[in-house]
């Protein structure tokens, strides 16, 4: 549109509505040409081949059972999940104290819902999170206010998965910001330290880091010192998350037009204020999609703690499936756990999409 175009908007030829496409018959859509035909046939075969799986999972499935031994005959044994639901969700946490992890999960959901809208982001919410996390850990641990002490070795299931994901991302994020800023710093020491940290951690597989944290770290500590196993695992996850988040954030920093910082300098805004109020908000906003990606990856990475003996949801479901009274319903347990992971990750990804559109709308207003 140029300035000389003075036609009133309403009078203009209908630009807003795209030209109507002539409707092709349905047959044409599916069998129009060779590509469409072969795609239709292939999809048809795929759908047909899924019938046994759907039958297994839904129509032939046993939802309740009187006799566990025959439960898997015919179809999936969802009765197993019903029977083991408590164990898969809460793991080895003492059943009489079960309300505590339940409240923790409630807290997590409440806080996450409360943090959804960017309008509420601010100092108060940050304090709220700190208080909520302190409350969650107190609830899980107990030992105060008449709650029995539950050592971290008895924590388990979904609360552990959620806490590990939340804390590793939450604690990793500030580190990541420093690492990203450090890597772009003109001072050699912070820059080299940041590069070293990021490249070292990114060069190691998470499994390796977890082994270092769970096996080597206690051996290297001075005699008589022990750090809680869950704490060490969390530390490994945090470092890992920080390195990956740092690279994502660095991408945002690099995408920022240099004019922004130059303008701030010209206005005499002090360096840290420039970073805090001008650089970071814009940089982070640019990298919402890759941040989401890292968050989703970290949620799923928490399942790797299985190999260092932390009883997360996946470990709990594997143990549940070894119960000799039930006929090894591994597939059912894995499908169930996968479904929970999917719900969490799909939620994150949908939220991020919504956030992206919202944040953009705010910028261009």
């Amino acid at each position, binding site marked *: 549109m140029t300035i000389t175009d003075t036609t009133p908007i309403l009078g203009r030829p209908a630009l807003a509505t795209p030209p109507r496409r002539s409707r092709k018959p349905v047959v044409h859509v599916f069998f129009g040409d060779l590509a469409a035909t072969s795609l239709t046939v292939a999809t048809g075969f795929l759908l047909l081949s899924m019938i046994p799986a759907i039958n297994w999972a839904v129509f032939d499935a046993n939802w309740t059972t009187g006799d566990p031994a025959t439960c898997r005959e015919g179809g999936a044994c969802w009765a197993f999940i019903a029977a083991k639901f408590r*164990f898969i969700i809460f793991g080895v946490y*003492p059943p009489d104290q079960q309300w505590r992890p339940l409240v923790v999960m409630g807290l997590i959901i409440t806080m996450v819902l409360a943090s959804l809208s960017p309008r509420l982001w601010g100092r108060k919410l940050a304090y709220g999170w700190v208080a909520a996390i302190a409350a969650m850990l107190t609830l899980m641990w107990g030992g105060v206010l008449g709650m029995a002490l539950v050592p971290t070795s008895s924590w388990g299931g979904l609360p552990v998965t959620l806490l590990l994901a939340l804390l590793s991302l939450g604690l990793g994020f500030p580190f990541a910001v420093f690492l990203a800023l450090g890597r772009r710093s003109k001072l050699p020491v912070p820059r080299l330290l940041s590069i070293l940290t990021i490249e070292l951690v990114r060069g190691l597989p998470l499994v390796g880091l977890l082994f270092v944290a*769970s*096996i080597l770290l206690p051996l290297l500590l001075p005699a*008589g010192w*022990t750090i809680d196993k869950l704490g060490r695992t969390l530390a490994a996850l945090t470092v890992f998350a920080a390195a990956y988040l740092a690279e994502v954030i660095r991408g945002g920093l690099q995408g920022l037009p240099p004019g922004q910082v130059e303008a701030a300098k010209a206005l005499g805004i002090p360096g840290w204020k420039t970073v805090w109020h001008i650089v970071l908000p814009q940089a982070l906003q640019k990298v919402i999609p890759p941040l989401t990606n890292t968050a989703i990856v970290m949620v799923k990475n928490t399942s790797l703690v299985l190999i260092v003996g*932390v009883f997360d949801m996946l470990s709990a479901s*594997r143990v549940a499936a070894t119960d000799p009274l039930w006929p*090894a319903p*591994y597939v059912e347990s894995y499908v169930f756990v996968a479904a929970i992971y999917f719900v969490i990750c799909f939620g994150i990804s949908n939220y991020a999409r919504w956030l992206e559109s919202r944040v953009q709308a705010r910028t261009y207003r």
Partner: protein
Amino acid sequence: MNWKTATLAATLAVAATAQAHAGPTVDSVKARGHLICGASQGTVGFGAPDEKGYWRGLDVETCRAVAVAVFGDKDKVEFVPLSGQQRIPALQTGEIDILPRTLTWTLQRDANGINFATPNYYEFTGFMVARSSGVTKVEEMTGASVCVQTGSTTEVVVNDVSSRLNLQLKPVVFDNVAATRQAFFSGRCDALITDASALASVRATQSKDPDGYVIFPATKYMDALTPAVRHGDDQWLDIVNWSIQALLNAEMYGITQANVDEMVVSGDPRIKRFLGVEPGNGKALGLDDKFAYNIVKQLGNYGEMFDRNVGKGSPLKIDRGPNKLFSDGGLMFPLAFQ
């Protein structure tokens, strides 16, 4: 394998230097108020949480026996789930007090920073075949096909046995446990080979007719699965040893969870000493004189423990076999309680 051994040796060397705090374990356990045991991540029959999160199994109960000896309460235990690689470092660094976790007593482990107590289970590599085949021992297996998992030590055993006895066994190799087992039950091979207790659990959980299969040893070699403690604390080792011995002795004397209170009034001086009616034994170990009584009262004797967790009272239905008392032809040897 060599680099693994080297890594292990290096780890253990570091461990040995880092391990100067050989304070009396029993004092720190008492001060803490509970025992910390290494547990597996779920090995049915040996150590696994039930659906209420309560740890059960032969290894778990061995640990509970030590807790009874120290505290008189089988529930004053915290179980720390450990992976196979973690278990020994966790013991060396003091993260746990005792490691009963299907750990085989070997020279390398014994020499490198841990001490083994008394074996609580003897394990062998076994074959499982259909009962209908009529085969009951290795020598009869000529020409049989064997489902085996690739890269496992059992793959070596199949070849050893086959060439030593000239059996011409045909290994059918699969790359994971589930596939191996499934292949066996679908009739892909005549026999399945792995640890006997694992075979028993497979038979219990994955076959439609557990009685239709028999399990027998593949070799004459036996592994002694033995709870371990840190090097350098003899008093603690004694306590663990005699807690396990209390279980074995109780079975030898015929003392069970049900009849232990009647046995207290027994006239037999050995039983009197064992149950602490005549004092001395407990005190010598720094424990309550009635520690053996308490163990039997709360957990039963070794035979009861075996049956409940892995034997005929459990879904695993493992034969007592080598785990019988010495007097019944097994390897479990009760030492003199005096």
